[in-house]
Structures are given as C-alpha cells and as structure tokens.
C-alpha cells in the first residue's frame, strides 16, 4: 500500500485512475445492459442490414451521411423507420435527382428486395414506423369507402383535393395527386408524413381509419365511375370555366360566324 501511496503524486496517477474508472464502468455496463436487441438479430436480418448498408453507401450517403446521420444536403435518417424508406424509395422520390422545393415522384430506381434491404439498414439506425403488411392497409368492411371519404374530407382534401387530384402549397411545394398510388404507399405516407405532409401515427389516427382512407383513395382516384362524363381533371370550377369558354362559347361563336357567313344573297340570286 505504501508503494501505491508513494506514487500518488506521480504525474500519470490521474490518468491511471481515470483508466481504472473507465474500465470498471464499461465492464459493469457490459455486464448489466439489456442485450435482447443484439440477440434478436437473426442472421438473415443482419445480412439484409449489411447489404442495405452497402447500397446506402453508394446511393444515399452523399446526402444523408455514411451512417445516415444527415448532412447539410439531407436530413438524418435515425428513427425514420423502414416505412419511410419503403415510401420514399418505393415511389421513386429517393434518391432525389436535384434539390428543389419538393422531390417529385418518379420511376423507382431500386427493386423491391433492394428497397427492403435499405429499409432494414435505416431501421437499424433507430426505432421508427415499420413497413405495413397487406392486412394492415387493406380494409375489410363494406362501408369502408363511405367512412374513408368522411375521414379524407376532414383530414386530407384541404391539400390533396376532394378527389385526390392534388393541390398547391406554398413556395412551389405541392400535395401530389393520389392517382395510381400503391395502397401500401398511401398507408406509409400517413404513418411517416413525408416531405410537407403531417404524419398520422396510430396514436392520432388508428390503423382502421387509415385503412378506410386507403380504401376511399383507391376508389376515388382509380375506380370511381364518372357518371357525368369527362372529369376535366377533377379540379373544380377552374377547369370547368376554361372548358365552358373554349368548348362552349368558343364553339358557339364559331357557329355564329358560320351562320352569319351563310346568308341569303339577295344581290347574286
């Protein structure tokens, strides 16, 4: 003990104590910390994460950082969950072509298995919304469309328009058209709130209501018959006014010109 106390004023004593403390606390943590998560990783899952990480490094990391931590070019992906990746990459929005007010939908670049790998990697960065299964986004009740319509008009139509035709937001941003959107992606959009959209987690909008909205959007934007004829884009009175001026009054004026040009010719007969 004497030896130890004799060296207690040695210049490196503080460092040694610090090292001991670190080893002790680290060791204690390793012994007592919950280890379930690490154990739950199946080998297939970690393989997907590895593959996803490789894809991520090539296609995403230039904006989102090598570990998805985000850079000045793109936001952090920690905690966005696999649903966000499935939506953004599955609708072709990511990887983005260029910066701008909003990233548009386009032809997806990755195949679904690749998207799943990317999603697995991003999900491994932190817990977030999980990609839904088919049962989650498919409504079973017959009155789902009517109920979904009510929910849609309360929560969605102020930006996406009554028929899901989309609408403008500020500074060049917009709510996109919902035509031909995969039901899974509609569900994921509500879960994750991509870009300018607010998110509707299960705590504010239960899964069943989201199913009903999906059913309504699928019906309205894809299957709904148009008993009145051409829908003119379902954009309300603006396109109706244009149609009325061009094909209503325009045609009538053309006819008036024709009628006036074909009159009785008293002089020539």
């Amino acid at each position, binding site marked *: 003990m004497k030896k130890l106390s004799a060296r207690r004023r040695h210049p490196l004593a503080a460092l040694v104590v610090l090292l001991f403390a670190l080893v002790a606390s680290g060791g204690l943590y390793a012994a007592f910390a919950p280890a379930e998560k690490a154990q739950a990783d199946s080998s297939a899952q970690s393989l997907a994460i590895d593959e996803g990480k490789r894809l991520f490094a090539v296609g995403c990391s230039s904006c989102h950082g090598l570990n998805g931590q985000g850079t000045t070019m793109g936001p952090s992906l920690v905690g966005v969950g696999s649903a966000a990746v499935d939506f953004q990459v599955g609708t072709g929005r990511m990887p983005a072509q260029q910066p701008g007010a909003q990233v548009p939908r386009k032809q997806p670049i990755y195949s679904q298995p690749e998207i799943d790998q990317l999603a697995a990697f991003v999900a491994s960065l932190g817990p977030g919304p999980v990609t839904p299964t088919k049962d989650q986004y498919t409504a079973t009740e017959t009155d789902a469309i009517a109920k979904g319509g009510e929910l849609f008009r*309360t929560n969605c139509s102020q930006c996406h328009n009554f028929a899901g035709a989309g609408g403008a937001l500020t500074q060049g941003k917009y709510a996109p058209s919902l035509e031909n959107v995969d039901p899974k992606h509609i569900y994921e959009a509500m879960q994750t709130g991509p870009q300018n959209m607010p998110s509707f987690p299960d705590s504010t909008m239960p899964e069943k209501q989201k199913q009903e909205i999906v059913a309504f959007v699928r019906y309205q934007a894809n299957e709904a018959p148009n008993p009145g004829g051409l829908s003119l884009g379902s954009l309300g009175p603006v396109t109706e006014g244009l149609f009325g001026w061009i094909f209503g009054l325009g045609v009538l004026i053309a006819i008036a010109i024709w009628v006036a040009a074909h009159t009785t010719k008293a002089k020539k007969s």
Partner: protein
Amino acid sequence: MSSSASAKTAAPASTRAKPANKAEAAADYLDGRLGIYSLAKSNLRKIFPDHWSFMLGEICLYTFIIIILTGVYLTLFFKPSMGEVVYNGSYAPLNGIRMSEAYASTLNISFEVRGGLLIRQIHHWAAIVFVAAMFVHMMRVFFTGAFRKPREINWIFGFLLLFLGFFDGFLGYSLPDDLLSGTGIRFMEGAILAVPLVGTYIAMFLFGGQFPGTDIVPRFFTIHVLLIPGVMLGLLVAHLILVFYHKHTQWAGPGRTEKNVVGMPLMPVYMAKAGGFFFLVFGIIAAMSAIASVNPVWAYGPYRPDQVSTDAQPDWYMGFAEGLIRVMPGWEIRAWGHTLNLGVFIPLMLFPLVLLMIAVYPFIEAWITGDKREHHILDRPRNAPVRTALGAAWISLYLVLLSGGGNDLIATHFHLSLNDITYFVRVGSFVVPVIVYFVTKRWCLGLQRRDKDKVLHGRETGVIKRLPHGEFIEVHAQLPQDKLHTLTAHEQYEPVELPAEVDENGVARKVGLMTKTRAKLSEGYFGEHGQIPKPTAEEHQEITSGHGHH
C-alpha cells in the same frame, strides 16, 4: 240583299273577304282580339343587319331560355331544405353518411331521376356559357361604341343583367349544399361580416343565426329561382324591346347611314336564322353536358363546416372576387372595440367599384365628347383608340384577378411558386392594365395609319416592277370605291378648346375644374396623340391624280 236583312243576320259583316282557310280564320280571330295584324305588319319586316358579332346577344338569350327550362325541371325534384337525413341511395360511396335534404335530393336528381344528371349538367353548363356570352356581348357593344346615344339606358340594363347573372349563378352554385357550395357560402359570410359595424347583424339576419344554420338553403332557393330570375326576365324583355325600338346598329359601308338599317328582314330570314341558331345553341350545350361533367356533387361530399377541399373556387365569373381575396394582404384595424377587416373589406366592398366603372363609361364618354346626336353606325375599335385601350385595360385587370383566383392551379400545372404568383397579381393588378392600355392604344393608332396608307396609296399587289434606272418598286392598286368609303366613313372629333382666358369685355374668365378636366381628357382622346387624322378627299385626289410621287 236588303240592308235591314243584313243588319239582322250578319250584323258584324266583315270588311274583309271570307277567310280562305282555317289558318286564316284563326288568324282573323286572334287579330280581332289581340290586334296581331298591325303588330306583325310593323315588326315582321323589321330589318336586322348581318354580322356574327350581332349574334352574341342571341347566345345569351338562348342560354337564358335553356337555363329557365332546365331549372324548372330541377325544381320538380330538388328539396330546398337543410333537414338532416342519412343517405341510402344508389351512390354507394356515400351510403350511411349524414347530409342535408338539399344535398340528398341533388344526389337523387343525379342518380335516380330519369335524365336528371343530364338536365343538371345542361343547367350548369348553360349558366357558365350564359355569363361568358354576356361578357363577350358586353365587350362587343363596348368596343364598337354601340352604347352611345340612344342606347345608354339599354347598356345599363345589359350591365344589370350581367351583374344579376353573376349573383344568380353564385346562388345556384350554393344550393346543392355539397362541400364546394358550402365553402362558397362560408366565403360569402366572411364578406358580409367584413361590412363595417353592421356586418354581424346582416349575417345573423341572412343566415337566421350562426353560420350555417338551417335557413340559408331555403332562402337562397327562393332568391335563386324566383326573385333574381324574375328581375332578369323583366330586364331582358325591356332590353329586347329597346333593341327593337332603337333598331339594330350596323357597320359602316356604302349605302349605310345613321338613318337606315341595311340587312335582312325578320320574316322570313331572321326567323329562320334565329330559330335555327337556338337549336344549334341548345345542341352544343346538350353535347357539352353529355361529354363533360360539371360540378360533380357526389365527389365533393356533403358540406360540413369542419371540412374543406383545395381547388375550392367559384364558377369562373366570380373568380375575380376569389382572386382579390387570395392576393390581398390580411390587414385589419382594431379600434373602439370594433375590427375593420381591410383584408376582406377592400377587395370585396371597394374594389368591385373599379369594375363597375365600365357601367358608367358611356356617360363619361358622352360628357367628354359633348355629342348629343344619335349614333347607329358602329365604330371600328381602332378608330376609337382611347376607348378601346380603356376596355382592353379593364379586361386585363379582370383577367389578372381571375388568374389570382386560380393561383393554386397555375402553380401546380406550370410548376411555379404560389407565392410568386400572388406577388405578381398584387403588382400586376396595378401595372398590367397600364401596360395594356398603352400597347392597345399604340396598336390602334398603328392600324389607323395602315388604313390611311391603304386609302392614299392603295393596296400592295405583290407585283414588283423594275424601273429603267434599276430601282425596284412594288405596284400598288387603288382600293375599290366601297372600300374607300368604309375606311373613311368614321368621323373624328375635335378636342374641346378651353374658352379664351378673357371674355369679350376683357374680364378674366373663371374656368371651372370640370371644364379644365374635360378639355384635358378631350385632348387625350382626340388630340394629336389620340388619333391619326383620316385622309381627306383632297389628299386622295392629289395623290391619285398622278402628281404624287407614287
């Protein structure tokens, strides 16, 4: 036959021969009671000049008739009630939804009533075309100066018809109580609330309490189907009677004067033309209604004050009001416990006065010209550059505001920023009309110069001639006499002179502000920058006699 016998048996012996057939007998019967012969004699041979633009008013008349006919059919099935029902009908996506009877009966008209949807669409498309046709008709009258004496009152009637058409269209749009129409009524409530001091009271009175209440649809229904159409019908009849009374205007041309009308008689030519044109109009409107959907109420869903859809615009004619509201900054003044909502008050209460200016324009122009004569020969728009430029500026203001009303669709379809469009409309509603005014005026003056050149130097023949010394010239050909007449028939006003500064007694004359203003305006209209002096006969003589250089 003795006279006593005839008095006994055939006392009312006709002065005419016995009717040849039953039709004549029937006509005789009616003439004896309604006096149709003298009416027909004086009117059936009425002459109307021929020009396509004179048929714009006919489009208005016929679409109005179509609207009334289809509207009557719709009233047979529409229930103007805000009573709540749960829908159970053939449009499955709304089954089980709570809605008003008005909305349910509109769905019923669209899906259950035979021909109901087609009639509804004819009614709505006809209304859109009706107002558009009135707008174009008014512009035709404006740009050709057909509003001048004796037609100023008829111009006002026409303007009132347009104005009432706006409102009745808006009320009709509000009746089905779908999400779009309810949003429109909400907009109107906001406009009423912005009236200083009494706004709240008027809104409470109109809605029978808080918005939306249960009274608004039945009240709007009565105004929409009875009050406004009744007034419009009266104005329309007066408008047509005045057209008959004043006789139709005509374009300048050989043989056409301020005292005659050159054209075709009503019977048989215009009876056939106008009758046929009615069916053409009805046919086009019916075809439109069969092809394209208008106001798909089933897609909007029933109105609920907590719901709204984007693309909630009014029909096109109210689009300027929508635009004004969209671009106006949300200013307000709070004082003495009251809020003056300038953001709504200025665009909806004050700014429409600017648009109303066109209604009083005939009186302003008559005051400037001081012309008390009747005018039945139309002006070519180029020959009244200031008037044409003012009209074009007015239209451009309307269009700028209209684009403000559709700013969201312009933003999404042309990939622009909504905010930029809003800023553009804010500045543009002041700047664009001024630019349009000057461009149009210069354009008119250019066309006047072109006319003058044609009159004096003839038209270009396209024949190139080489002179002995090598110069190339294009041969010009003299215009025929009738063309020369048409191009020079317009008269040109002299600008009003200010009275001399001192009167005949050498006393300084007091010149009122109005007189000065009038002289200034007159100079602008008819001074050297307002019109190109038309060629005189002497100028023409001199150039065509061969002494000129051409």
